[in-house]
């Protein structure tokens, strides 16, 4: 990388540069019907250079990749080509982050293991968690990743962070006399707690049995809907995307600072913070792609949009103090106690094809693969139904649980109650 930095520094038209290096080691295991089918390892390193050229009142930029085979002559050509491309780009000027150095590690117990060793340990926990008769895991894929990320720039940023993530994709299956059914499970984690993993998988095995037993209701369902963290992440991330600097700068945002996201809240008021790091959150990072140190910012308070967030460049374009690319979604707990969930009737969504959230069309809905209908005295697993509602009305009446959960990149209420939804 020294030669690259030297050549970039010597080029008369290069105003600034940034180099992103991403080394990835992974250990991956793929099981088919409980038996090992494929073992994978990756040992790769991406090196991407961004060249910035200030010309007239503009700043242009262009990127290229460096490969192990890239020679010095090719490097000179790549820099020349990048400069020519950057000169075509007439974007508003901005300043790169400056003068920050450091080596960081995002907290994780993964560092105690080699990726392949950890993958084997995770496999043991996953298969050991299935104790449901007639249930199996027809497909399990385990990915353990170690990322070493470095950002260097011409203004004195030189930072490296090591972070880990893992993903288990499992297909719990229940084989009954009449039919075989399955659910889809994707469990992401940044630190291994075997008991949590076992609880997650065991829960899914019980749910797939329920899907087998589920019926398509021959009675009308008209009751509140309960969503879990997977769907809540989708719902709240859609709000967060709208408040991103790039959405605001491109004028594609629906909400502006000061706008009420909940126009007339009748339930819990929504509060959202985006953070660089959060305990157990797989999106935790110390800095972003530009090398910006990551803190946190309150985006929604009392149901009202109060801030924007995003990258260095778009933050400066908007005249904001850039927050950096914050990726951990933290939603305030609500006021609903556990006891409130005991009373029926309500429909608790367990698995959907995918929650559709569309602020443009004021729509929320989707197809339900499994839900529990609590009629006040019984719990009936149901399938083959869909839900839909007017998003603005649903947000006004949303109730959020006091109890919180962390799920992948989401930290917030474990459950939400949606009213004014149609079940059909």
């Amino acid at each position, binding site marked *: 990388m020294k030669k690259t930095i030297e050549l970039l520094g010597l080029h008369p038209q290069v105003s600034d540069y940034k180099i992103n290096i991403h080394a*990835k080691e992974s250990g*991956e295991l*793929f099981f088919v*019907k409980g*038996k*090992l*089918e*494929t*073992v*994978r*390892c*990756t*040992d*790769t*390193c991406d090196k991407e250079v961004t060249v910035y050229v200030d010309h007239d009142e503009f700043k242009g930029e*262009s*990127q*290229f*990749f460096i*490969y*192990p*085979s890239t020679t010095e002559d090719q490097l000179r050509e790549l820099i020349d080509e990048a400069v*020519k*491309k950057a000169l*075509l*780009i007439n*974007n*508003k000027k901005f300043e790169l982050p400056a003068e920050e150095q450091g080596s960081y590690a995002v907290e994780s117990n993964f560092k105690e293991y080699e990726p*392949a060793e950890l993958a*084997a340990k995770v*496999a043991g926990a996953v298969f050991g968690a299935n104790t449901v008769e007639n249930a199996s895991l*027809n*497909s399990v894929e385990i990915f353990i990743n170690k990322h070493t990320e470095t950002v260097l720039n011409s203004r004195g940023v030189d930072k490296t962070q090591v972070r880990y993530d893992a993903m288990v994709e499992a*297909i719990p*299956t229940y084989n009954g006399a009449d039919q*075989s*059914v*399955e659910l*889809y499970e994707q469990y992401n984690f940044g630190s291994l707690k075997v008991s949590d993993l076992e609880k997650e998988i065991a829960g899914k095995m019980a749910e797939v049995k329920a899907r087998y037993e589920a019926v398509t209701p021959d009675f009308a369902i008209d009751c509140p809907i309960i969503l879990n963290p997977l769907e809540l992440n989708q719902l709240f991330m859609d709000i967060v995307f709208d408040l991103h600097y790039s959405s605001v*700068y*491109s*004028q*594609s945002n*629906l909400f502006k600072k000061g706008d009420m996201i909940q126009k007339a809240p009748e339930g819990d008021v929504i509060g959202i913070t985006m953070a660089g790091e959060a305990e157990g959150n797989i999106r935790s990072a110390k800095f972003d792609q530009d090398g910006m140190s990551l803190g946190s910012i309150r985006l929604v308070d009392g149901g009202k949009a109060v801030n924007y967030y995003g990258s260095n460049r778009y933050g400066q*374009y908007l005249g904001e103090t850039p927050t950096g690319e914050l990726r951990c979604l933290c939603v305030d707990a609500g006021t609903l106690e556990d006891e409130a969930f005991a009373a029926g009737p309500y429909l608790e969504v367990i698995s959907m*094809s995918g929650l*559709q959230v569309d602020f*443009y*069309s004021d*729509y929320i*809905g989707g*197809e339900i*693969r499994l839900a529990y209908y609590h009629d006040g005295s019984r719990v009936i697993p149901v*399938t*083959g139904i*869909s*839900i*839909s509602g007017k998003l603005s009305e649903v947000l006004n009446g949303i109730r959020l649980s006091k109890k919180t959960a962390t799920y992948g990149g989401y930290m917030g209420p474990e459950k939400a109650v949606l009213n004014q939804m*149609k079940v*059909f």
Partner: protein
Amino acid sequence: MSFSAFLDSRRASMKELVGELKKEYEYVSVLGSDVKARSIRADRNTSNISSGRDTECGFVVKMSNGSVFFEYSLDDISGDMKALAAKISGAFALNAALKENVIDEVHLGDEPLVQSFARPSDLADYSEQQLLDFCKNTKDELLTKSEFILNAVVMIGSLEVSKLFISANRELDQHYSWVNGFMVAVYRENDKVVQVREGANGHLMGEVLKELPTLTDKLLHKAHMLTLAKPITPGVYDVITDPSITGLIAHEAFGHGVEMDQFVKDRALAKTFVGDYVASPIVNMRDGAASVLSAASYFFDDDGVLAGDTQIIKDGILVTGISDLASATQLGLPATGNGRRESSRRKAYSRMTNTFFEKGSDKLEEMIASIDHGYMLFETSNGMEDPKNWAIQCVAEYGIEIVDGKLTDNWVSPVVMSGYVPDLLKSITMVSDDFKVIGAGSCGKGYKEWVRVSDGGPALKARVKLG
């Protein structure tokens, strides 16, 4: 534009590595990928020339000793091949628990073949300056057409693919390109903001640049109508699907369920329906990289199997599925050329390519005229597969109400189709005599492993649940 000089420079090393690993493994192959993606974009405030997200350069080594498959992804194959082979082998020391529980014996085939493939491309005829000017001019033209546009984005993305596959008996290389152009308008009218898009795609840049500007009026009409769109009243309706929604049904509702790695895992209900009616007798469906020329057309797949053209449904009967090499071998069937990887860093799975229903004999206007009350559905938003249980979730951007056999001005948006796949496919009563495959899509397996795909077909008349 020609085949990657970098991959060519590694050809000898790849062969040497295969030779070294063959001393230890029954089957060894190496796939080298050099993919140059370029994205050129202009909106109201900014412009950009960047490497597209598909850019990659690397290798994946695949090995087997008649049971477990081993794969190692790396950046380069050069230097001491004995040492590299030892490093790769050393990475796969399995613990006792894993060793004891592996799949049954399976031996991958490696039939001899040496061949080079190339598809003509005009990418070299267009400079970044020309393409950036095109994006800026088209964006400006769009902005001048309506005062209601808050922002307009025009983007041209190109992909130049070189792949080299080496095994003990095969040496294949291919070079081809693909171009996607699209424009998006953020539009505010009638106190409502909508985002609309139109796209053009093909293997020649010249054709995409010609077609894209012709779509601006269609884009703006759609934007205007969507600001007036209402939610649909949930219910079961007669519908006509446009080629995009036809493709969505082919892809999401049925296509994922015939990816034969799901057969191996007992994840696909389709496995038990081969030879049975799964659709109306007027329904025919295909998939294949060689079926049509579109976004997922290649000459050989990432397992080194030549591209196929697979008839999946014939006259309503399920004929077969689509497979990668490992799945086909485990099932005792010939591979169909559908082994695809997101990149050289990811595993190969059975994946769709260009997936479509074949055209029929009905006229679109007669199909619309046959409906008393229903909707014509347009433009894919998204969909989700459920291969085991054949539940459907397909989301159309919008629908237009049909009353007394005529399209009205009543638009609804968005529209979610749900139900049970065979119910939908068996409800198809008319198939139009026109046909379009749209090559702008990408597809995940579950929520990952993204590859470029196309889908489409004729207009279909069916009866489905909408909400």
